[in-house]
């Protein structure tokens, strides 16, 4: 695997649209060619090299390309958008849409990210050591086909509207979640290791949510059906089991109605 190191030496005045910063776009390119790729500052198109110094060449394929971003990327958006393979390491914070629509590969952000990260995700891994903003692993605006697969892991807290329309894949949140978790969910797993504010699983028809702490305002559409012991993220614990959202239309499988599950730790 070859490593391309981008160091932000000349920060942009406006937010930087960095959708071209992916192993797919860097693969097979020399450092100079990578520096010539387009990024947008507002509506102005400029070469990547205007803001970043580029060291190292891309690998032969995306899978053989690793990108390391250094410097303060708090205002760089869309890193790793639509990537299919390879690896990205962001040394500090990053802005919105990190790993949006990603299909494969791995992104590791060592700081915080803003909203819409992992949106429309289909595969791969997005690891955030800090906090994430709103709409983490959510569906794009208007879209009813949300996250299909992959893993998102956020060590800290997340904002609101996590995993809207989730269909598959796993989201693990180390801290607390704000309102709206897995709204309209149709599959997948969301684990909140801290507390959740409320509206957890609203209009959800299928899929699982685990909350280790408390749900401040639980929804009336969920009904407790018992207690279960389950293994979650490598550890086993006892949970109170709720099904719902009972106000919704639910699919049937083998003659049995399928419900969404919320498990709260006892």
């Amino acid at each position, binding site marked *: 695997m070859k490593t391309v190191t981008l160091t932000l030496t000349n920060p942009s005045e406006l937010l930087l649209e960095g959708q071209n910063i992916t192993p797919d776009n860097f693969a097979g390119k020399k450092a100079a060619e990578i520096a010539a790729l387009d990024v947008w500052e507002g509506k102005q198109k400029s070469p990547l090299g205007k803001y970043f110094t580029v060291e190292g060449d891309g690998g032969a394929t995306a899978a053989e390309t690793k990108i390391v971003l250094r410097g303060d990327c708090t205002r760089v958006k869309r890193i790793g958008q639509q990537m299919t393979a390879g690896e990205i390491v962001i040394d500090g914070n990053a802005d919105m849409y990190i790993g949006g629509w990603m299909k494969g590969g791995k992104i590791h952000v060592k700081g915080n990210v803003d909203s819409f990260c992992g949106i429309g995700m289909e595969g791969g891994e997005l690891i955030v050591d800090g906090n994430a903003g709103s709409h983490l692993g959510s569906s*794009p*605006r*208007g*879209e009813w086909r949300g996250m299909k697969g992959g893993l998102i892991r956020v060590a800290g807290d997340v904002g609101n509207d996590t995993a809207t329309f989730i269909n598959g894949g796993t989201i693990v949140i180390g801290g607390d979640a704000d309102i709206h978790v897995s709204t309209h969910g149709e599959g997948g797993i969301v684990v909140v290791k801290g507390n959740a504010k409320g509206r957890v699983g609203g209009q959800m028809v299928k899929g699982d949510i685990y909350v280790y702490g408390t749900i401040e305002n639980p929804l009336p559409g969920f009904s407790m059906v018992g207690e279960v012991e389950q293994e979650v993220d490598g550890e086993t614990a006892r949970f109170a089991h709720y099904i719902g959202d009972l106000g919704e239309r639910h699919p049937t499988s083998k003659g049995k109605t399928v419900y969404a599950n919320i498990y709260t730790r006892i």
Partner: protein
Amino acid sequence: MSELLIRNGFVFDPLQGIKGDRMDIGVKDGKIVETSALASPKTIDAAGMTVMAGGVDIHSHVVGPKVNVGRLFRPEDKLFKSPLKRCSRMEMGFSVPSTFKTGYDYARMGYVFVNEAAMPPLHSPHVHEEIRDTPIIDNAAMPVFGNNWFTLEYLKNNEIENNAAYTAWLLRATRGFGIKVVNPGGSEAWGWGLNCVNIHDPVPYFDITPAEIVKGLIETNEHLGLPHSVHLHANNLGNPGNYVDTLESLKLAEGYAPKNDFGREQVLHLTHLQFHSYGGDSWGNFESRSKDVMDYVNTHDNITVDMGQVTLDETTTMTADGPFEHHLCSLNHLKWANVDVELETAAGVVPYIYSPKIKVCTIQWAVGLEIALYAKDPMRTFVTTDHPNAGPFTRYPQVIAWLMSRAARDATMKTFKWLDKTIDATSIDSIDRELGLYEIAQMTRAGPAKALGVTNTYGGLAPGMDADIAVYALNPEDMPSDPAAIEKAFARCALLVKDGIVTVQNGEVVAEPAKRTVWVDVKVPENAQVQRDIYEHFLRHYSVKLDNYSLFEEHLHNPRVIEVDATE
């Protein structure tokens, strides 16, 4: 003084009966002229290419409030589908494209006239604002009458003259083009949460049947002598077994003869016939009955139809048939928008995915093509996708390829999951007919122009008509064996001249000539009762004042008025 000479192309002009002769077409000051009238024209070589009049679309939902609802509530329709700026304005969206993309894409396909299929009268200012924003193509818009309280009341009392006076007033108030009828009575019944499921099902409160509404509107239309006929979206759209209702709707035209000065020969246009030609009594035994319906159409000269071809795309359905959209939403459980337009109509919008993996969708695909392939008279059967309901208009080139090539149909059918069941439920596999360029010219320009009553300006290449000329890179003497090449040629015309201005070259828009709004102004005798009725209804029932209802002149963009005198 701008002159053009398009030389040596193979010209297909069904209005003049020209079947692929090698001819020169002269253009002077935006009109087609005899080549002898040209002094020093700029010459364009069209040797080895097909020359037709600019395309005419008789039924497409491109402007207005429900189209905009579709744009607003489907942002995902634009996601990663918005090419970077190519022309002067932003192009985006797939099934409900932006106004700019609509104009450019029609022009790239060689179309110059598009008839907006349903204008809610109350929202006509919005319709006209979007017409202004849709570049290049000329637009007309048909206000909907089939659920309008005035119309229902007049027709219930059999007051054709009063209904005609009201119709003339509304056409002027909305700068409309003709009489559109959507699910007659059914959209009004939707206000009570009901529908009119067949043509004898009375409308609640008004106590009039859809059959009486349609017959009354045909009489009104011929009483006024409008350029276009009644344009009907029949009852019970989209349901198994509805071909019975369709035949009954078509039979309503029996006994009526066209009366107009525009060369129109039909009294009823039944639109998106594909959605109305189904047999069976459930989705399980759903089947094509296109043969029954087309046998009737083929033997009755006073009817025209268009296809409403399903293109097997993810699209956005939108119609003034409010109850149907609710029904559709309960089938696919996707998002649903619904609107009631006071006293006049309703509308609904639902996204829909026509998948080659779903049996009903592939049967629908076959039904549409069967309609066009069974047509004995291509001058009465037109290419549409009921854009965007059965598919976006940008798929017309693909529809043309399917019609012109059995191999193209076979290639598509190979992708069907339920191919055998589709073949059993339809007759598409037994049809070998392949249409020629002349028939395509009939179905895409000459025929629709004639049915719309606009053949003095659109749909042909005779001297005196608008210089709207499309040139396609297809050699009729050496047609490509690969249907993809046919599709490509029709998707990006080699040349489009609009009003004498070279607008598209090699598939790229190079100019934006002024577009027009085409509307019909009917003179009727003064009618004090209708004027009083209008005043009373606005006083009692409308949420707007009469003074604010009619379109203000500033909303009307570059009008072309078709005048009709119905005072005698």
